[in-house]
C-alpha cells in the first residue's frame, strides 16, 4: 500500500489538491465486522482469574440454592396432597396407572387424529390469515370493499366463541340440506377452526407486516417492484420471521382446540376417546393420560421452533443483557 487515502474529502480551503478521481482506493474500507483476530499467546491476568473464580463460586451457590428450593417445594406439595382426606380416592380416580396404561393405545390413536387435524387446519389458517392480513394493507378507495370485508371477518370471528362456531357450522350447515354441501362433522369442525383461528392469526401477521419499517417498502418500490412483489419478497418474509413466537403460540393452542371438535360427537379424537372410557368406568385417568400426551406433543414443538429460529438467526437482539 503506497498511498494512504484521506480520512474524508478535504475541504476547498485545504492546500492539497483533490485526490485522483476514479482511482480505486478501496483501501479506505473500514474494519470487517466478521473478521477474526489472530490467535496470540494470551493468558488471563490475575484479575481475570480471580473474577472467573468468583463467578464460578456464585453460579455454584445459585445452583445449590435453586436445587434445594425446588426439592423442598415439591416435597411440601406432595406431602400436602398425600395428606388430604380424599387422597386415596383421588389417586384411584385420576392416577390409576394400570388403567392408564390400558387406555393409552386408544387415546394415542385419537391424538394422531388431533395432530392430522391440526396440520390440515394450520395450512388453511395460514392461507386465510395471510390473505386477510394482506387485504388489510391495501391502500386507496378502490380497495375499500376488500378492506372492509377483511375487517368485518376479523371482528366477527375473533368475537365469536369457538364452541359456538363449531356448533353453528357443525349442526347448522348440514341441516340446510344442500346436496352439494359436505355434511361430515370433521369437515365443518375444520372449517370452524380455520375461520376462528384465521381471524387471530391474520392479526398476528398484520402486526408483523406493519412492524417492517416503511423504508424497506420504499427501497423495494424504488427498484420498480410492484406492491404485490414488494409484499412477497421483502415485507412478508421479514414479518413472518418476527412473529414466529406468537404464530407458534397459536399453533399450540390449535392442537389443543382440535379436541373441541368432539362436541360434534362423531370425531374420535383423544378427548372423545378419553370421555368414552371415563363414561364406562367413572375413572378420570384417561383424561390425565390425554393431558400428558398433549403436553408431550406441544413442549418439543416449542423447543424445536426456538431452535430453528435461533439457528436461522431470526431472533433479534440476544447478547448478555
Amino acid at each position, binding site marked *: 500500500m503506497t498511498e494512504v*487515502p*484521506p*480520512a*474524508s*474529502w*478535504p*475541504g*476547498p*480551503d485545504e492546500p492539497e489538491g*483533490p*485526490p485522483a*478521481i*476514479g*482511482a*480505486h*482506493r*478501496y483501501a*479506505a*474500507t*473500514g*474494519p*470487517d*465486522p*466478521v473478521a477474526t483476530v489472530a490467535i496470540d499467546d494470551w493468558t488471563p491476568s490475575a484479575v481475570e482469574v480471580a473474577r472467573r473464580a468468583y463467578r464460578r463460586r456464585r453460579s455454584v451457590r445459585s445452583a445449590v440454592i435453586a436445587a434445594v428450593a425446588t426439592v423442598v417445594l415439591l416435597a411440601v406439595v406432595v406431602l400436602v396432597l398425600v395428606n388430604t382426606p380424599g387422597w386415596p380416592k383421588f389417586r384411584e380416580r385420576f392416577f390409576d396407572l394400570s388403567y392408564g396404561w390400558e387406555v393409552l393405545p386408544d387415546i394415542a390413536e385419537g391424538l394422531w387424529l388431533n395432530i392430522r387435524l391440526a396440520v390440515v387446519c394450520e395450512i388453511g389458517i395460514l392461507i386465510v390469515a395471510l390473505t386477510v392480513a394482506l387485504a388489510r394493507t391495501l391502500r386507496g378507495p378502490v380497495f375499500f370493499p376488500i378492506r372492509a370485508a377483511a375487517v368485518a371477518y376479523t371482528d366477527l370471528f375473533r368475537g365469536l366463541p369457538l364452541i359456538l362456531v363449531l356448533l353453528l357450522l357443525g349442526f347448522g350447515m348440514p341441516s340446510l340440506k344442500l346436496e352439494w354441501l359436505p355434511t361430515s362433522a370433521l369437515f365443518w369442525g375444520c372449517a370452524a377452526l380455520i375461520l376462528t383461528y384465521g381471524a387471530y392469526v391474520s392479526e398476528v401477521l398484520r402486526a408483523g407486516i406493519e412492524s417492517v419499517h416503511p*423504508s*424497506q417498502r*420504499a*427501497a*423495494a*418500490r*424504488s*427498484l*420498480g*417492484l*410492484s406492491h404485490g*412483489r414488494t409484499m412477497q*419478497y*421483502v415485507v412478508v*418474509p*421479514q414479518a413472518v*420471521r418476527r412473529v414466529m413466537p406468537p404464530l407458534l403460540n397459536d399453533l399450540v393452542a390449535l392442537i389443543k382446540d382440535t379436541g373441541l371438535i368432539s362436541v360434534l360427537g362423531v370425531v374420535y379424537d383423544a378427548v372423545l376417546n378419553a370421555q368414552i372410557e371415563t363414561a364406562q368406568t367413572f375413572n378420570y385417568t384417561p383424561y390425565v393420560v390425554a393431558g400428558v400426551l398433549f403436553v408431550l406433543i406441544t413442549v418439543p414443538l416449542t423447543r424445536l421452533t426456538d431452535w430453528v429460529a435461533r439457528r436461522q*438467526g431470526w431472533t433479534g437482539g440476544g447478547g448478555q443483557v
Partner: protein
Amino acid sequence: MTGAAETSGTEPFLQIAGLRKSYGATVVLRDITLDVRRHECVALIGASGSGKSTLLRCINLLEVVDDGTVTLEGRELTDPRVDVDAVRTGVGIVFQAFNLFPHMSVLDNVTLAPRKVHGIRRSTAERDALEMLDRVGLADRARAKPDQLSGGQQQRVAIARALVNRPAVMLFDEVTSALDPELVGEVLDLLAELKNDGMTMLVATHEMGFARMVADRVVFLADGVVAEAGPPEQVLGDPVDPRTQRFLRRIIDAGRL
C-alpha cells in the same frame, strides 16, 4: 409516453418545473425549478429540512407531488397515467440508511429487481450482479448478509443494487450521513467514479468537499425554492444569496468547510 423529444448534451435531460410538495400544513417544496443535463452531476445542498430528500423522493415518485412536473427524457413522470414501476427502474435512488433487505444475501439484494421486475434468469442476473459488485469492490462479499458488512460496504451494495437496473439518472439522498467518518471516503470515491463514467446524478449532500470537487453544479435549497445555483466555486466560494452566505458561514463555524 407523452412525447419522445430528442435529447442532446445541451438540452435538459431531467426537468423539474414548478414543483410543490407539502406534508399537511408544512410546505416543504414551494416552487422548485431545476434542469439537469445528460451526464451532469448536480449537488443539492441546504440546511436540514430544506427539502433535499423530499425533492429526490418526488423525482422517484415515492411521493405524490402537489403541483408542478418532473420530466425525464421528454417523458412526464408526474403524469398519473404513467406506470410508476417502469419509471422507478429508470430512476435509481440510494438512501441515507442503505435500506438493504436484511433477510437476503448481498447477491440476492442486487438480483431481486433484475429477476422479479425484468424477469431475467437467475444465472444471468447473478453474473450481472457479481460484475456490478466487483465494480463497487465487493464481489467477495456476495454471500454475506447485510449485517455482516460495515456501513460503507452496505452503502456500496445499495448503490450496486440501484445500478443493476441501468437507470438513466441516479439520485443520492445524503448517502454518507449515516457513515462513520473513516468510511465516508470509500462511498464518495464510488460516486466520483460514477460521475466520471458519465452517469447523470443528483446528489443531496452535506459533504462540501465532494460538492466542490466532483459536482458540475451546486444547487442551494432554502425556503422551498432554489435559492442559488451555479458552478461549485461560485456557490461555495462567492455566494450571492444571503441565505447561502448564512448557511456556509454556519458550516465554516462548525469546521466542515
